[in-house]
């Protein structure tokens, strides 16, 4: 699928941006020119040869803080998506095959999750598990999992009643075989769209939660945290919030672009768009009756 996405211009762009973000997440902390926690005397300095993006109100190098914060930001978004995938998509597919009681139970659980108010649940989780990025992301992941459950269940449901699944069953296929060979390929496209959208949303949530001081505790840097501290000194450095904002926006946009590309390359229409043209099969040896 990646190869087919890369054939689309928008897909290439999305993959390119996300690759840069991934590099930032992996090598960001090592690339930081200064200690992201060490303050200097030059507070709120503009860009200079030493501090490319200036310094914040404690004189900390902004570039270093953004680079050092990228790991946490990206990991948080990935964590949200993974939790949603495991808690939502897997039971969604299984609900079609594991019999009526599992189906009923999982549907009611999902209804409950949908009904849960976000803040109450977040506070309850924080009270139970403490304040921290993993806990916050766990909360968000659980709360978006119903989307994954519905999407994968809907896709699996259509496939489970199809004749090719019946044909496979008639050849002695097990449920596991059917899911692996037939259902998975049909669930993957809508699921990857949901995944890409959630990664984008997860990014915003991580950023806004750290903006609010939930999850990551200061002085640990994150993109949302940098944005929050820059915003307080808007009157001194009106341009400063731009860099973290653009970073967050670009990443979210890239994820949405990727989601669109995934939608475009899957399904019959998508194949026609990205597949090399094949000539129709010539009619085979006709018998003269």
């Amino acid at each position, binding site marked *: 699928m990646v190869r087919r996405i890369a054939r689309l211009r928008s897909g290439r762009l999305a993959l390119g941006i996300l690759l840069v973000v991934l590099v930032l997440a992996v090598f960001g902390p090592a690339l930081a020119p200064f200690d992201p926690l060490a303050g200097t005397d030059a507070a709120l300095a503009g860009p200079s040869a030493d501090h490319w993006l200036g310094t914040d109100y404690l004189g900390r190098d902004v570039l270093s803080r953004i680079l050092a914060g990228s790991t946490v930001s990206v990991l948080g978004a990935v964590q949200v998506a993974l939790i949603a995938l495991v808690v939502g998509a897997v039971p969604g597919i299984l609900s079609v095959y594991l019999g009526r009681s599992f189906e009923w139970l999982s549907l009611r659980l999902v209804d409950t999750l949908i009904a849960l108010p976000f803040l109450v649940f977040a506070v309850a989780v924080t009270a139970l598990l403490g304040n921290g990025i993993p806990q916050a992301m766990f909360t968000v992941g659980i709360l978006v999992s119903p989307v994954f459950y519905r999407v994968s269940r809907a896709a699996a449901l259509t496939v489970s009643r199809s*004749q090719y699944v019946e044909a496979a069953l008639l050849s*002695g296929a097990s449920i596991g075989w059917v899911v692996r060979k037939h259902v998975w390929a049909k669930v993957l496209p809508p699921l990857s769209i949901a995944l890409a959208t959630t990664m984008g949303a997860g990014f915003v949530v991580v950023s806004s939660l750290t903006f609010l001081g939930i999850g990551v505790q200061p002085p640990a840097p994150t993109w949302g945290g940098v944005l929050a501290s820059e915003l307080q000194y808007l009157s001194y450095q009106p341009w400063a919030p731009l860099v973290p904002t653009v970073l967050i926006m670009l990443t979210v946009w890239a994820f949405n672009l990727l989601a669109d590309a995934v939608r475009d390359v899957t399904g019959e229409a998508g194949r026609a768009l990205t597949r090399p043209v094949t000539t129709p099969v010539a009619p085979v040896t006709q*018998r003269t009756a």
Partner: protein
Amino acid sequence: MSPDAPLLQVADLDVHYGSRRSRTQALHGASLDVFRGETVGIIGETGSGKSTLARAAVGLISVSGGSVTIGGEVVTGFSDRKWRDFRRRGVVQLVFQDPLRSLDPDNTIGASLAEPLILQGRASRSEIADVIRTHLARVRLDEDVLDRLPGELSGGQRQRVAVARALVTGPELVILDEPVSALDSANRVQVLEILADLRASGVALVFISHDLGSVAGITDRVAVLYQGSVVEVDVTDAIVNRPQHDYTRLLVGSAPTLATGSLDRARRDELRSLVGAP
């Protein structure tokens, strides 16, 4: 099992759809025997239970009464595991009406054809490739279809692929549910020729159709299904020329492709009112 016992024995089969209030009976004590190597047609109008009979016989839907025996084994009441083991032997296969829906759109033709053989788990890769090639030739398809997706083939080619998939396990009985209804006349003739070859090779066939005309030329016997019951079973010639049941008479008279002379509208209405309950 004795050599002259039926290969497929359907006895007093009842099938219900829906639950409680919306419960409807699709089959009322339907019975049918299919012997080795013979070709039996099942005809009836839409909703008469033809497909239900076929699907119940291969265990795709559960039955509420009666029994199905395949090759001397009573398969009614099989657990999922027993069905799986039984089906992997590949004794009975089903060909669906619409080949576009019965082939996975994401799997190449090669993958679809290999699936039953992989599930059997006996053959090596090269053996599987050999078997597939043999059966492609049998349904008159070129090898270059193997890398294609079902959406890239014509309707006739797809149905021949579906037939080939039913044949790769070397079944003794193939049930064909309206195999040519979705095809144009040229492809229909080609698929019917393939079925005639199959019949000559000794595979028992059950040919389901709403049209007596397309069944008459290829079957040894015909069963007439009406409102979930088999109302008449006889050799094809007798069904066409000396129908006993009023409904059969109606069917014979309504078949546009039969040369036995069609009924006028008044006579059809008269028969329709006579038929009533089975």
